[in-house]
């Protein structure tokens, strides 16, 4: 069974991000890049399914500039079999829909039985690509999946999605798109052997022409990036515990009118 996992490279949350010169992009100098954390859950789940079945192939795909090869290498080091890098400046300002179009074109070429995507990328925090991908492919999708199992024949999936107030477990014929939620699994760390092995694995480069996707303009674009307006300075309430609790409750009622 072939499983395809799109991975996005994003700035590590611990690094500072600054608005760039043109105010539409961030300053990329000095940023540490990582695989978006939810995509690690997705890679891990794909590897587990393959290991459990004792057969199959895990293909990771990323759209982005040269630097995303690093993210693909990390996924290969975790155990993915091969990688596809869509690297074309025509997609530099892709929104989620164009990204989904590109990924859908790759999926049509690869014809996997299952696509596992991160719940959301932690840079744009959209959570849109997986749903859009599924729609473009005409496949069913399940969001925020907490558990997944494939039947022995490799034809159907049983997966539970997190909803308000509980978990809804669905069955679907493959192919299907899942989005990985935290709690689905605990991603492994690459071993030294994995890291060495990753160097020999294939990363195929693709451009817009190879996919037949016209580099159209984005349907949603960033007009401007801004830093957060500063929060008004807070107040530390002193005194002994009883006094402080009393004063806090008074302030919440009378000053802030929050209670």
């Amino acid at each position, binding site marked *: 069974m072939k499983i395809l996992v799109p991975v996005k490279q994003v700035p590590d949350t611990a690094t500072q991000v600054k608005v760039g010169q043109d105010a539409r992009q961030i300053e990329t100098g000095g940023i540490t890049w990582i695989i978006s954390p939810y995509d690690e859950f997705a890679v891990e789940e794909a590897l587990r399914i393959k290991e459990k079945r004792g057969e199959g192939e895990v293909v990771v795909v990323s759209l982005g500039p040269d630097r995303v090869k690093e993210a693909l290498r990390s996924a290969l080091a975790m155990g993915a079999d091969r990688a596809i890098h869509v690297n074309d400046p025509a997609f530099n300002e892709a929104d*989620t829909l164009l990204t989904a179009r590109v990924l859908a074109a790759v999926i049509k070429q690869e014809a996997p039985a299952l696509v596992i995507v991160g719940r959301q990328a932690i840079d744009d925090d*959209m*959570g849109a690509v997986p749903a859009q991908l599924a729609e473009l492919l005409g496949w069913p999708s399940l969001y925020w999946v907490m558990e997944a199992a494939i039947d022995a024949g490799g034809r159907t999936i049983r997966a539970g999605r997190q909803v308000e107030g509980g978990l809804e*477990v669905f069955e*679907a014929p493959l192919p299907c798109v899942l989005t990985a939620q935290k*709690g689905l699994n605990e991603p492994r760390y690459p071993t030294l052997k994995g890291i060495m092995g990753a160097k020999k694995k294939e990363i195929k480069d693709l451009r817009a022409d190879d996919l037949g996707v016209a580099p159209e303009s984005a*349907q949603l674009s960033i007009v401007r990036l801004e830093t957060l307006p500063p*929060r008004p300075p807070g107040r*530390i309430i002193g005194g002994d515990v009883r006094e402080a609790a009393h004063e806090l409750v008074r302030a919440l009622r009378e000053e802030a009118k929050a209670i």
Partner: protein
Amino acid sequence: MPNAFWCVVEDDRAGHPKKVMAEVLAEAARLSGGRAEAVWLTDRAEPDGLRRLAEWGAGKIWLVEHPGLAPYRGEVWAPVVAGLVAAQAPRAILGAVTSRQREFLARLAARLGVGFAADVVGLAMDGDRLVATRPVYAGKLLARVAWARPPWIATLRPNVFKPADPVAGREPQIERPTVTVPDGALRLAERREEVSTGLPELSEAELVVSGGRGLKGPENFVILERLAAVIGAAVGASRAAVDAGWRPHRFQIGQTGRTISPKLYLGFGISGAIQHLAGMRTSKLIVAVNKDPEAPIFKIADYGIVGDLFEVVPALTEEFKKLLGK
């Protein structure tokens, strides 16, 4: 007359719209000059649920009531709404950030070939285009985004937009369009309900009490639950508390948990790591209790108490009881 702004109804799965719809409808009405309409896909719409939508400002309700629409499945909903959009040409389609709508509206946008903005915290007309504000990079920056063409599709973060004052007694204007509801490939096999805590749901709660590693163990969350019960708050947790197994993951607030925007957030024994702030920094009022005066959470707190939470929480609970006459 400009075309209407549509609001996709989020309901309680028992025939009533959720209160977040009052916020979405008010925003739609404000931006469209009173042309807000509701679109409700459900297996069951109760009359008082329909009335509520009208009272919250829906000039018209497009109601598609069909057993195949529950439980929600994106592949089934998208063609139904896309058909209505083709016939009615709404100018915008707005929803709320909920488990269904975050997926559905993205899916619908792909079907229609238009832009989609998730988790919006501000909307404004700029001439005749809509501009949305949304947090990006774990809430460290704000992005203003705009669409290439309508319909403008977005999900709105709950508790951020001001709900309309309901107009009592307004009669709902209901349209029941004839549509085909496709079968869909997904089959619901099982629904596992959570044991109800009796407290509000985290992502829509107006008041949230949250605990971190400072709680020291799962048993101590009881004191937060007591406080929460007095003021009617939901109880959340930091990732440290969730990873330690003290709380289930659905209670986690932050980048890899839920994003909340309550009127009041009270954090106890939480240091305020950037990934935690990502999930709660748009809260209107932030209170922090931590024994370490240097804890980063104090940097964004409106009120802080430096002290031992095991003393402060019971004292606060007593004070709230007095205030609320409980």
